[in-house]
């Protein structure tokens, strides 16, 4: 148990980061802003109580966008029926994630290599920076296929698109954060937010709002316990068949992000993390979300990153964050009303930039396969989004892993009685090919194969030995296998032929 003050303080910073995200993501999901804040409170709270790590959960971009895409064809944005469908979708997502837990599906994510996880983290950081630009420059939302198109549009149309007041506030927030970090590694996000807020007040003091057109956080009255009972009737269930594929996608994307974050935490900190329990926590939190007027969430890269840089190591920081959202909105409402969105986005920019680390690239550059995984993951995320990137990362990690275990370590010694071939590694259908080459180069000689360092032998390897031994017998040569007792029993079972001499060690 770390210092509880550290945890509470990290929770406080987490709350400051989540408030603007909750509001923005509620819009993306087609809901009123308070649903995003309830998500920031209750999903964070439940997944921290049930989970085992210091991961911060809550509203998430990809999940929110998918909710909007899924439900908008069924009902009008923000209408009561729309909200009912969102809640139904959320319950489905929770159930699917619980099913995933029952099947112990978290194992897939154990194959993610450290390079892939760093690549995903860097890619997510890039996406966070791009998203924060919208608020820093006060752009009205416009959609482009690739990030460079957006940058091109912003640069070529800067005078029309960019709000200079908003830009000034955003830049001063970022500068405040970086300068503040020199003096206090702990409080720099708070320093950044305060700099942005004061800069915003100064701008509002000199120029009136009709001129600046700045976007502010605004007033947000919250209930302390917003109970809601999702309406489930036969009519809804008939229509909601269309939601099922989306529920599966959302469940996967939410879990994939959470598990990547948890894996990263497990890799880089000494927290006692159980991946299966995290899946259970996410699933149950998302299932309970609709009963507290909130939509589903997942682990958050940026908030977990900030949380970790502040030294939080237990789920208590998540619980504290949930509490602080409620307290901040309830008691600091009038102060937060005039918080410029640009200042909030500035802090996100800092957190996103922290996730792309040059030291990672240098670290992985030493092994070529790791560098390829890192760069391929990063590039596929910045071009095709997080979900595609995670799938590619899992695929690449598993491929590299398979390539590596299908390598055999072979050493050849020439003895009086013939050639001795020592085999290290797993002998299965993918790796037998390496043996073939050796057998061909020593064709016609007596061969002794030492199998005592072989970890696994499968049917195709046995078939290979039988085939080769009969070939060799035709040439008058003999095949000898050096094995242990366990392997003898196994080879007998697989039907080793009598042409091969077996010598137990």
């Amino acid at each position, binding site marked *: 148990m770390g210092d509880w003050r550290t945890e509470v303080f990290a929770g406080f910073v987490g709350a400051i980061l989540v408030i603007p995200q909750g509001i923005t993501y509620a*819009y993306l999901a087609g809901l*009123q*802003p308070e649903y995003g804040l309830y998500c920031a409170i209750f999903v964070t709270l439940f997944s921290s109580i049930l989970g085992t790590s210091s991961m911060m959960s809550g509203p998430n971009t990809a999940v929110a966008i998918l909710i909007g895409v899924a439900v*908008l064809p069924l*009902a*009008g*944005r*923000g*209408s009561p*029926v*729309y909200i009912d469908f969102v809640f139904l979708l959320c319950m489905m997502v929770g159930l699917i994630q619980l099913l995933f837990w029952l099947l112990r599906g978290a194992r897939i994510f154990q194959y993610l290599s450290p390079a892939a996880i760093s690549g995903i983290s860097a890619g997510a950081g890039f996406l966070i920076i791009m998203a924060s630009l919208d608020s820093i420059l*006060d752009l*009205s*939302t416009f959609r482009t296929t690739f990030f460079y198109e957006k940058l091109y549009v912003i640069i070529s149309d800067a005078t029309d698109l960019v709000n200079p007041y908003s830009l000034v506030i955003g830049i001063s927030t970022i500068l405040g954060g970086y300068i503040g970090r020199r003096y206090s590694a702990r409080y720099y996000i708070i320093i950044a937010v305060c700099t942005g807020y004061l800069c915003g007040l100064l701008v*509002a*003091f*000199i*120029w*009136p*709002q*009709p*001129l600046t*057109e700045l*976007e*502010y956080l*605004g*007033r*947000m*009255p919250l209930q302390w316990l917003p109970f809601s009972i999702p309406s489930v009737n036969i*009519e809804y269930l008939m229509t909601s068949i269309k939601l099922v594929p989306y529920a599966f996608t959302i469940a996967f994307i939410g879990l994939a992000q959470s598990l990547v974050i948890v894996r990263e935490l497990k890799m880089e900190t000494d927290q006692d993390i159980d991946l299966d329990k995290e899946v259970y926590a996410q699933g149950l939190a998302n299932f309970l979300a609709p009963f507290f007027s909130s939509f589903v969430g997942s682990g958050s890269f940026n908030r977990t990153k900030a949380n970790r840089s502040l030294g939080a190591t237990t789920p208590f920081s998540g619980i504290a964050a949930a509490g602080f959202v409620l307290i901040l909105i309830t008691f600091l409402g009038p102060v937060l*009303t*005039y918080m410029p969105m640009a200042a909030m986005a500035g802090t996100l920019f800092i957190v996103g930039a922290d996730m792309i680390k040059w030291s990672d690239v240098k670290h992985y550059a030493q092994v070529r396969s790791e560098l390829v995984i890192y760069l391929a993951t990063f590039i596929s995320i910045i071009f095709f989004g997080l979900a595609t990137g995670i799938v590619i990362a899992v695929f690449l990690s598993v491929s590299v892993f398979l390539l590596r275990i299908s390598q055999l370590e072979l050493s050849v010694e020439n003895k009086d009685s013939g050639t001795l071939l020592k085999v290290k590694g797993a002998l299965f259908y993918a790796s037998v090919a390496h043996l073939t080459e050796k057998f061909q180069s020593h064709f016609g000689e007596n061969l002794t194969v030492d199998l005592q360092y072989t970890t696994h032998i499968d049917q195709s390897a046995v078939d290979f030995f039988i085939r080769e031994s009969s070939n060799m017998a035709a040439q008058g040569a003999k095949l000898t296998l050096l094995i242990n007792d366990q392997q003898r029993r196994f080879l007998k079972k697989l039907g080793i032929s009598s042409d091969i001499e077996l010598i137990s060690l």
Partner: protein
Amino acid sequence: MKINHLLICGSLLLLLAPTLSHAQQNQPSIEQLLVEPFLDDYYSNVVYGYEIITDTQKHASRYVGNSLDCSNCHLQAGTQKEALPLNVAGMYPKWRAKNGKRNGIGLRIRECFLYSLDGIMPPEDAPEVLAIAAYITYLSQGEVMGAEPEGRGVPTLPATGYDPNPANGRSVYLEQCSSCHGEQGEGIEEMPAVWGLDSYNKGAGMNGIREAAGFIWANMPFGNGKSLSQQQALDVSAYLNLQYRPADPRDSKFLKLLEDLFN
């Protein structure tokens, strides 16, 4: 036989055609929409807009700075004539002297939040703004595009020959208005505050003496409109104009400070 039937139908249609083109498509009333379980994107935005207009404090609280609802001035959820009705979608975009810009309906709505609701200006793509725009479009069905609808805004009072007298206005206010709006203009229960920090600010249209007088004469006391004389309405309006209320958000506080320092 069949050809005869077709001919009869055809001639009937021809006879009906002119009337059909003028008759409005029957759009569902807001009461029908409210009980409808499934709504498409347009009508659900209309209903959302209607909810914002009638209960701004609950549905658009993010941008509201005082305790008013839109329907405090746009009476009957913006359907009552001479009480700033909202069936004006056909008049926008238009140039307005207030901000010296050509205004779309979106900017017009956003400025209401800034002035009359004394809040902050929502971004132009805020869902609340889009919903209110949808509701205004819904109310404007049947109006002639580009023309002023009948009973738009508030009636313009003719010159009475006397200047508005706030002292007289105060006695009228205490006699006729204070039972609902309170002696300190704070608003009692559901009735809106007419001055003080919970009311509209100095940039609002209602802060203009002629605008407010027209509204008061046509609609006040509530449910008993046009019972005051036009002079009485002008006097009350002048009295309200003198009261304390939030500053005009168009003024730069910095310039004001400089002015104060130099004088």
